């Protein structure tokens, strides 16, 4: 099992119940280092729930979630917070930038809870902003930026702690097609440089731009392009 060695994320028989309502029914999913995965599915199919569980923001009701080699069920709240601080990046549909902070300070927040000194955080944030093409906007307040620029700031923030994996929940959902395409290009570039990224979307065009497509329907994975490819190869 050579792919198990390099897996940064592994879900085995994961279920999630809200009270009596089960919204995930036994999900199996492995993501290898360096992959660019789209999780595709219609509204209400359980994509965000899945992302929260994969990102350790929520716990599975049953099943196993292994992130960066750690079985999260065995970790305390504080320990999974540490995992998020050091090994996981998030990008949200609504950007979630802090209005009171400049672009570079928002990016620097990507290392705020890692204990990195402020000067180093800011230095790395400047470099990361330059990487996403916003080197000249470091001092700008987010509310004076376009949606596409804001999402790029958020992506820079997610990458700052050099995460093992980045989760993006509908990263183009609030953007027009031009800005959306730019953001997707950026994600692809970053992946080409080695970042493992999982993108959640309900748009087929977005999913098609990714290396691998996992389709979710009613809380179950109904199609996974990697398994199909493996099956074909066999």
């Amino acid at each position, binding site marked *: 099992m050579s792919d198990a060695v390099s897996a940064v994320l592994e879900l085995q028989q994961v279920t999630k119940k809200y009270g009596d309502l089960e919204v995930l029914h036994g999900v199996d999913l492995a993501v290898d280092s360096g992959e660019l995965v789209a999780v595709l599915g219609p509204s209400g199919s359980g994509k965000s729930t899945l992302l929260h569980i994969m990102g350790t923001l929520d716990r599975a009701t049953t099943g196993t979630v292994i992130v960066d080699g*750690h079985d999260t069920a065995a970790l305390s709240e504080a320990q999974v917070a540490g*995992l998020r601080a050091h090994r996981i990046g998030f990008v949200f549909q609504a950007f979630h930038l*802090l209005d*009171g*902070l400049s672009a570079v300070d928002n990016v620097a927040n990507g290392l705020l809870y*890692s*204990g990195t000194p402020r000067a180093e955080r800011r230095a790395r944030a400047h470099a990361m902003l330059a990487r996403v093409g916003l080197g000249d906007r470091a001092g700008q307040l987010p509310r004076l930026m376009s949606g596409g620029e804001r999402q790029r700031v958020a992506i820079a923030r997610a990458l700052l702690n050099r995460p093992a994996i980045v989760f993006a929940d509908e990263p183009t959902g609030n953007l027009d097609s031009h800005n959306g395409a730019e953001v997707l290009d950026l994600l692809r570039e970053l992946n080409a440089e080695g970042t493992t990224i999982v993108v959640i979307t309900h748009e087929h065009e977005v999913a098609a731009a990714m290396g691998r497509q996992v389709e979710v329907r009613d809380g179950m994975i109904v199609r996974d392009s990697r398994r199909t490819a493996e099956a074909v190869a066999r």
Partner: protein
Amino acid sequence: MRRSRLRPGDSLRVGFVGLRSRKVRTVLSALGVAIGVATVVSVLGISRSSQDELLDQLDALGTNLLQVQAGQGLGLGGNTDLPDTAASQVRNIAPVEEVASVTSLDGPALRSSYADPNATGGISVKAAEPTLLDTVAGSVAEGRFLDDAVDDYPVAVLGAVTAERLGITAVDGQTSVWMNGRAWQVIGILEELPLASDLDRAVLVGYDAAATYLDADLAPSRLYIRTASSSVEQVADVLPAQANPEEPENVDVSRPSDALAAKAAAEDAFTSLFLGLGAVALLVGAVGTANVMVMSVLERRGEIGLRRALGATRRHVRGQFLAESLLLSLCGGIAGVLIGAAVTFGYAQAKGLHFVVPASAVGYGMLAAVGIGVLAGVYPATRAARLAPTEALRAA
């Protein structure tokens, strides 16, 4: 596996940024705290300033003055004077430093011979010894006091109120008052005498002059006695027997400085009343701050979710909101101390008092502010910490 960690400096900065991002709200709720703290500080400051004034006055006047007069009542009838020998007897008490006798005389004292003899304006006439001024720690505003050189001349010294009532402001050798059918030249006007305020309303003349021109009975009505500071009580105990050996029970001894001391003590009672008011203001400030913090938590669920996603623990989130609340009320507290000091300064200037803001007032003010910060912050911070990250992110 590495833990999530927020440096202490960052923790403060996070709280500060939270406040800076919502300036109007921050200023308004800090103002709530500031008003409460300012009330406490100015109440304590003003009361201390006035108390200091009284205590300073008391210091200057001394608490070693005693006053003796014939007792009123006891049904023994009309004699309201002390024996003629009283002054010399009292002088024999060892710790007594100075004695001055005063005798009440029949008025009236008028501005001139044309004035209405029935309109005396509450002014009395008294014979006084030259030692009186020093004994009651008084001073002259104009001219000079009675002395041996003028004791048997028809001259008068006016108390502060007397001079004002008679409209006499200067001593120029021409001014006189009219008593018992003749003019008495005014040779001095006194400052107010806090320890003997009935003399403020008197016209004072020498004993020899009183005997010569007023033909009065000169038994002393009252003695003022300065004693050694260490033996005031002992002297007070033996005074009745010395002043009037035959009827010691008919002698009243009092200590005029007690009235001033009582006034200083009364300030304290007054202060507690206003401090109550300050406490109410503080409570209002606390409720306001708590309200703002709760609103803030509701409004910032997205931010809370984001911070959890960035690796913040529940403890970090709780710390952030507590820090905000504490910083807010500390700013309010500092502003309140400054406002309170300014109010005290203004009051002291207006009333001519020393400007004093006791360290304890600043201490209590800041303590109250910190208390508000903690009280108003704990509940909202706990709520924020309890919020599940998914819930927080979904809400935003």
